[in-house]
């Protein structure tokens, strides 16, 4: 294994996925906010809501194209850069991606054209239906992608087939109703709703501060405050926490993000702050709140939260068992009908992936030394300080946003849109949800390391047989392309915000043509 190829492949995937995920959350949330705004227009028939919907729709469009463009890369990157992964788990992992295309992305992409171009070709109700289908398609997309991702975190319903040398599905329902995937879905789309609410609230506050388009800004502010309050509560309350007791890797993730090296007597304390050290295997200067972690993560007084060292001990046992399974697979490669080897395999197959961790140190895991096994067992620990801080950054922003939307909601209900301090705060809050979301993504994916598929396939084995030069070419290429597009996108977005709800291409000499096309005067 050329570890440079592995590290570069990971870097490229991280860059392209993090970049893609800058646009997706806003699409997820803004599409539903457009549905809310347009519903008000259809129910009340008031033109201003049409203008509001079209204005946010324009910003939605600028953001949407980059989400779609960068999504094209993601759909093929498993094949281009992770071809052994694609072979090894394609039987299960490919299905949700294909269903996503068929059921969700088709819907979203087919209707989005009509959403922009159909305003004067459709009745009010029909256009609202089209907008709703875009929102539904977008959110269903997220569902299928997170079912795929959830399966990487908790690979249920599949087993290794020595005849085809890959994982194959045996219970598709288990893949569909994977509890980790469900928790991730709710958590992620709620985060998208929060992101869009912060965006709408921030831009509206900017208009209110400048005294521009205030009629539109006040109404948008109110919608965003209500939608944002509900969503920010949902993100935190229905967070990922519930899945953390399920598997060894999920337990490891929890222990790592808490910097919890040793198992404590139940219920364990929650660490507020501290300085975890990978070298000393200890968290220094820790400040702990007693009992809280045990209560949150096990929902009981007696449930134990396992510490890192105990989990490494378990990994050691599973490596020993995995080597037996690996030996059986090698025998079956030579003779498919070897009954003894098949029995040996059946007894140990759940640990096969752990033997493959040793491939980093030796070509034949059966010949691994004791030191190598010990090293492989410690490889199952993700980078604790990084996990510890990412989690705190994400959680702090999450809690802050609940308070933020609480205040916004009170202000909106009291119709107090003139609190300049809060309006300024709202403008500066705009980047925060993106920071929290990217931190959350890194937390989930770095926390799964060293696994690509938890307990099944180590990340370093999943790569394609590429050269360092090839991967550098595409990393540089994507970075340049994405970089240029990012600059253009931000400029266009800012220009569209500065311009406000004035229509493009309209007949310039006519001031008040068809309903709603004429710009609303600033109040």
């Amino acid at each position, binding site marked *: 294994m050329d570890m440079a190829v592995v590290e570069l492949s990971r870097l490229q995937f991280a860059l392209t996925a993090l970049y893609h995920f800058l646009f997706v959350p806003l699409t997820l949330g803004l599409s539903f906010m457009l549905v809310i705004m347009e519903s008000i227009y259809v129910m009340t028939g008031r033109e201003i809501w049409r203008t509001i919907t079209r204005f946010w729709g324009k910003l939605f469009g600028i953001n949407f194209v980059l989400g779609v463009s960068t999504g094209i890369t993601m759909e093929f990157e*498993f094949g281009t850069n992770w071809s052994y992964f694609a072979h090894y788990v394609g039987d299960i992992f490919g299905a949700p991606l294909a269903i996503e295309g068929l059921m969700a992305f088709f819907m979203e992409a087919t209707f989005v054209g009509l959403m922009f171009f159909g305003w004067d070709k459709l009745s009010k109700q029909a256009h609202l239906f089209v907008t709703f289908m875009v929102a539904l398609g977008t959110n269903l997309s997220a569902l299928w992608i997170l079912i795929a991702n959830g399966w990487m975190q908790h690979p249920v319903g599949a087993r290794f087939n020595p005849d085809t040398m890959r994982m194959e599905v045996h219970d*598709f329902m288990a893949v569909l109703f994977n509890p980790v995937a469900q928790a991730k879905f709710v958590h992620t789309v709620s985060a998208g709703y929060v992101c869009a609410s912060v965006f709408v609230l921030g831009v509206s506050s900017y208009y209110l501060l400048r005294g521009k388009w205030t009629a539109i800004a006040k109404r948008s502010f109110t919608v965003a405050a209500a939608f944002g309050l509900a969503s920010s509560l949902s993100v935190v309350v229905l967070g990922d926490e519930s899945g953390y007791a399920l598997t060894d890797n999920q337990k490891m993730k929890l222990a790592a993000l808490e910097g919890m090296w040793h198992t404590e007597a139940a219920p364990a304390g929650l660490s507020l702050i501290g300085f975890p050290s990978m070298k000393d295997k200890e968290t220094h200067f820790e400040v702990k709140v007693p009992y809280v972690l045990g209560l949150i993560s096990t929902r009981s007084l007696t449930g134990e939260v396992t510490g890192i060292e105990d989990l490494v001990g378990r990994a050691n046992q599973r490596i020993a068992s995995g080597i037996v399974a690996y030996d059986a697979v090698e025998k079956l490669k030579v003779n498919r009908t070897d009954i003894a080897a098949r029995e040996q395999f059946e007894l140990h197959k759940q640990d096969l992936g752990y033997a493959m961790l040793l491939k980093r140190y030796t070509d034949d895991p059966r010949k691994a030394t004791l030191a190598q096994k010990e090293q492989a067992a410690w490889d199952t620990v993700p980078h604790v300080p990084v996990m510890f801080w990412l989690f705190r950054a994400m959680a702090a922003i999450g809690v802050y946003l609940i308070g933020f939307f609480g205040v916004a909601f009170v202000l909106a209900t009291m119709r107090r849109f003139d609190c300049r301090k809060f309006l300024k705060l709202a403008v500066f809050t705009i980047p925060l949800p993106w920071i929290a979301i990217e931190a959350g993504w890194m937390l989930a994916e770095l926390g799964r390391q060293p696994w690509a598929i938890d307990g099944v396939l180590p990340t370093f084995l999943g790569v394609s047989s590429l050269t360092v030069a090839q991967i550098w070419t595409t990393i540089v290429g994507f970075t340049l392309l994405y970089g240029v597009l990012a600059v253009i996108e931000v400029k266009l977005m800012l220009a569209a915000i500065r311009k406000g709800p004035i229509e493009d291409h309209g007949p310039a000499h006519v001031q008040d043509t068809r309903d709603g096309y004429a710009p609303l005067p600033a109040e």
Partner: protein
Amino acid sequence: MAPPIDYEILRMIWWALLGVLLIGFTLTDGFDLGTATLLPFVAKDDVERRMVINSIGATWEGNQVWFILGGGAIFAAWPFVYAVSFSGFYLAMFLVLSALILRPVGFKYRSKKPDAAWRSRWDWALFVGGFVPALVFGVAVGNVLTGVPFRLDSDLRSFYDGTLLGLFHPFSLLAGLLSVAMIVLHGASWLSIKIERGPVHDRAARFGTIAAIASILLFAAGGLFIWKGGIGFRIEGLVDSFGPSNPRLTQTVAAPGAWLDNYGRYPWMILGPILGFLGPVLALMGIRSGKEVLAFGGSSLGAVGIISTVGLSMFPFILPSSIDPISSLTVWNSSSSHVTLFIMLLCTVIFLPFVLLYTAWVYKVLFGRITTKEVKTNPDFY
């Protein structure tokens, strides 16, 4: 629980669905690619260019999903094909993806500034987004026909032994040009039904004429190469069409001329090449006589014929290996498991009719020619 349909039949169905996906992509997104390729040549000033862009402005996005779905469906039903081809064609894939990334932003961002230099830059970006994928897809198919330099080890990990430039050889270039001609013809016939009659319409007809003739000639040259060019593969011995998906269990050898075997065995397959010729001929007649629906029908039929010809000639091969024939991927040794193929078929049967239904509805709403007047007044247009 075993699925109620045989593994062998499911593999056949998914082989056919692979064709349906490729054809669906070419018939829908094909005219977007063709239109974008023609953009700088058929439209001279900004109003003309906006007419061309808006003829596909509302629908290209849905059409592009055929490509995304193609990727997902190959992943789900033919994981070996997904893993081997995309990692093998690594840099070519990067070219295609970059070109396709330019396309959505080209559509959306071009109209955001009135500046002429800005717009001209995006016009060329759109051209690249149409031309490069059309060429590279054809080149890739050419390479699949001659065999791709990969081998699988005993863990079934794939190793690739070629370079980006190695993909471009005379036959693959011929296939690439055929693909461009087919796509440009499709784009030209789309423009002929979708925009008002006038200068742009006439220029599109001229390019369509050239593309139709080129299609016919290049398709014939391709056929000649298949016959005499020394390419082809054959399976030796018994084939276990119900067997596990492990390519290394099949005995495959290189056999020059073997791509014509199927036409002797199943004479009905000759329909593929016949349509491949008939389509462009009908399109040419349609363009010359001003029967625009005939032109579009002809170019669609041509795409169906040309793509099916490739699939039918190679059956049961999907991706033969030129350096290690025993690693070759066929319909019988590279699919997903029995259960997955069945579940994916169920999903397709349930969802594909909905997709076709609402796509048809969207086209119905947007029915009609794009006019100069509309481009100048409609505030929603790009």
